[in-house]
């Protein structure tokens, strides 16, 4: 069941809201858990074992850590000798760290088992074949359990937060399960920390009229992005990324642009739906997109695109690696050898960023294309850091600054090229295809518009016009959001005159009803990130 399906919007969601409101405040989270299970059951109830296992590991690891903290406190309090106190602390540090590492390893093994087993087997088979061994290990072909990539990160975050004492462990297993299987976020994120949603999720605040109203408006807005724009572009994207041998370099460029737009509309649209739905229950989720195409470099792009994944990687990978012994040793070495400061910073950044981008790539899926996508951004960001002083020097010579509007536009456009090039390896089905597409892009320019080739990609002129008109609507909204930093349109619209609100809802509803791609003759297009 997708968030953009009619059955979700007019049957499942109202039923969930009504049951939630009818229950006593204390037990409202139970209603959420029940509807999480119903939502999950649409993908097969047997696979609920995975969130159940992940929830169990998360819950018990949290409890065990709390127990060890309490024991440590008790023993330290009882001990008077300072040296012994230190020893106790050290011994408990080892114990808690072991609990954290073992529980995280269990969660990682769980996801490796279902998501990456076939990837490893394929690579072993491929190496064996190259070495002249024809024996093939059969693939396991597991069906990916819904949301495993998202709740695994949330679970790891929860355990580390308990270990860091940012939060206290939850003592109610059902609450932990409600958190990791929360039906609005399980399919596409955003990846939320326990601390961010705990209060809203379990306080059982009643349904508020304005929240439901503005939540539905945001749900409709997300549906419009998905059903009117993203799915409309899908046939062209599918064609261009499948018929790679038939395309020229200009078509490859168009493929990259069209897929980027489609992915943004698909993913940000589904996040609009998710945030809107959660808001109806009074649960505030973090924004996952902050107008990413206004970013002026790759680092900023990743602060605006899939924000919560970026925050997770920064919190649980980048910072720990930056503080690790390896980085500290290198910093000490650089200081002793009086290495150039810029060089030292580059090496420290490289050590900290490489695991971030490898995990980013791998998280998207078990494929060399995704790993390459992660490495691509690692290289781009490193190059940006390396050449930053040179850029400053050039701007100084030109007697201008980065804030100059012309410079800003050039930087934004340069960043678009970086994004589009990255999306080729992200979308293409294998590395061979990626190599062919990049080669064509750089060496085989060709005609696309003057000969009408773009009309042979599975969508016609009117489809392009409709997509463009609605993209302009999204662009206008994004510009408004950029100018009113921090403010949400779905909140602002509740302050507008009623007739404007009614007109907005009617416009969105009728647009989806008539121009949306659904019903007989249309194959439901999967949400892109639901497959990760």
């Amino acid at each position, binding site marked *: 069941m997708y968030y953009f399906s009619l059955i979700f919007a007019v049957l499942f969601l109202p039923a969930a809201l009504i049951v939630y409101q009818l229950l006593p405040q204390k037990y409202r989270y139970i209603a959420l858990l029940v509807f999480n299970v119903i939502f999950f059951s649409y993908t097969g109830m047997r696979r609920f074992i995975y969130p159940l296992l992940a929830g169990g590991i998360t819950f018990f690891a949290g409890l065990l850590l709390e127990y060890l903290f309490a024991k440590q406190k008790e023993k330290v309090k009882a001990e008077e000798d300072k040296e012994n106190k230190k020893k106790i602390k050290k011994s408990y540090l080892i114990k808690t760290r072991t609990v954290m590492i073992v529980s995280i390893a269990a969660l990682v093994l769980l996801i490796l088992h279902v998501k990456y087993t076939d990837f490893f087997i394929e690579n072993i088979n491929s190496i064996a074949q190259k070495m002249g061994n024809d024996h093939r290990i059969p693939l396991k072909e597991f069906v990916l359990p819904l949301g495993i990539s998202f709740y695994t990160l949330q679970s790891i975050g929860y355990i580390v937060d308990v270990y860091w004492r940012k939060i206290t462990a939850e003592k109610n297993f059902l609450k932990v399960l409600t958190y990791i299987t929360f039906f609005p976020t399980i399919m596409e994120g955003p990846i939320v920390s326990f601390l961010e949603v705990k209060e809203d999720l379990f306080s059982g605040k009643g349904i508020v*009229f304005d929240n439901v109203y503005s939540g539905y408006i945001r749900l409709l807005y997300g549906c419009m992005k998905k059903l009117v724009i993203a799915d409309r572009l899908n046939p062209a994207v599918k064609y261009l990324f499948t018929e790679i041998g038939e395309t020229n370099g200009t078509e490859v460029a168009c493929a990259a642009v069209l897929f980027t737009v489609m992915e943004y509309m698909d993913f940000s649209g589904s996040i609009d739906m998710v945030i809107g739905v959660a808001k109806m229950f009074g649960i505030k989720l973090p924004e996952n997109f902050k107008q990413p195409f206004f970013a002026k470099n790759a680092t900023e792009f990743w602060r605006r695109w899939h924000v919560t994944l970026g925050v997770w990687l920064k919190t649980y990978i980048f910072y720990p690696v930056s503080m690790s012994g390896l980085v500290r040793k290198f910093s000490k070495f650089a200081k002793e050898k009086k290495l150039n400061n810029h060089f030292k910073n580059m090496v420290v950044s490289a050590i900290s960023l490489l695991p971030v981008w490898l995990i980013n790539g791998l998280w998207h899926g078990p494929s060399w294309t995704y790993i390459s996508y992660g490495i691509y951004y690692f290289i781009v960001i490193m190059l940006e850091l390396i050449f930053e002083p040179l850029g400053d020097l050039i701007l100084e010579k030109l007697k201008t600054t980065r804030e100059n509007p012309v410079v800003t536009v050039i930087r934004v456009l340069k960043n678009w090229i970086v994004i589009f090039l990255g999306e080729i390896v992200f979308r293409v089905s294998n590395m061979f295809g990626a190599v062919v597409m990049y080669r064509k892009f750089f060496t085989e320019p060709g005609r696309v518009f003057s000969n009408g080739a773009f009309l042979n990609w599975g969508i016609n002129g009117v489809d392009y016009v409709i997509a463009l008109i609605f993209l302009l609507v999204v662009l206008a909204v994004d510009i408004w959001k950029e100018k009113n930093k921090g403010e949400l349109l779905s909140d602002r619209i509740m302050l507008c005159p009623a007739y404007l*609100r009614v007109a907005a809802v009617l416009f969105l509803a009728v647009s989806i009803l*008539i121009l949306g791609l659904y*019903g007989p003759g249309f194959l439901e297009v999967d949400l892109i990130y639901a497959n990760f």
Partner: protein
Amino acid sequence: MENKKSKYIEIIILLLLLAASVCFLSHIFSPENLNLPVAINEKDRYYESIIREPENTIDTLIIGNSEAVTLVDTPRFEKETGRSAYSVGKAGSSVADAYYTLRDITKMQDIKLVILETDMFADDNIDYSSNREELKRVFTAETEHLFPVFRYHSAWKILAGQNEGYPLNSERGYEERTDIVPYTGGEYMLPTEEVSYIPKLRVFYMNKIVKFCRKNDIDLLFVSAPSALLFNTKKHNAVSVYTEENNIPYLDLNSLNDEIGIDWTTDTMDGGDHVNANGTEKVTDYLIKCIPEVISIK
């Protein structure tokens, strides 16, 4: 308080406007009102064709999913029996969808016999066999029946000249399919006592079809089309249980392959899923001979 009151008024006005828009658009986008020279949806081609037939000129209706589409050579059936038959199979049809198709057609035609192809009923494909999935399909059928704009909204493309639509059928729902892709899987009706699970909601809508036929004095015959790829004894058992419980005549053509003369090397167009023109001819011959024996047609 005043603010709250005005919000409620606003939401009532909004809901009324939304409902009015959906009703108005449903009126505009229904194939009956659009009356286009082509069909809007490929899946609905035969339904969109039958509604253009003159009233009360059809007395035998074949309903079901794609298996129903290739079941009977309706022009020959009419020639041999004098009974005007029409096949309105819809690929992937649910039983709920078939119920509404039947109801809508009987408003225009005086139907005396319904031949119901059973694949949509006994389908135990994992994607369709749970009550949850059936709820989705029923919900879709109900919504599209109440508000045709959900089913026919893409008609604007035909009106705008962006889509040519699909040709209407003038052969009473029959199309000669001559492709031959043999089935080589061997015997498929293997003995078993097992019974396919049929979701309760699907049974609920089948009961509605049965009740509707009885109420309107329409004879009902269940037929399982020959399908080496899709049919099996478990499905046969499930249909048999239902037909026996409801006293409905049932012909499983898969159990009668030899009698009908189906040759899976020449009589299928897609490796055993559907029969081709050769197979349809044999099935039609058999039904012409057999129907008067199993059913007392008015």
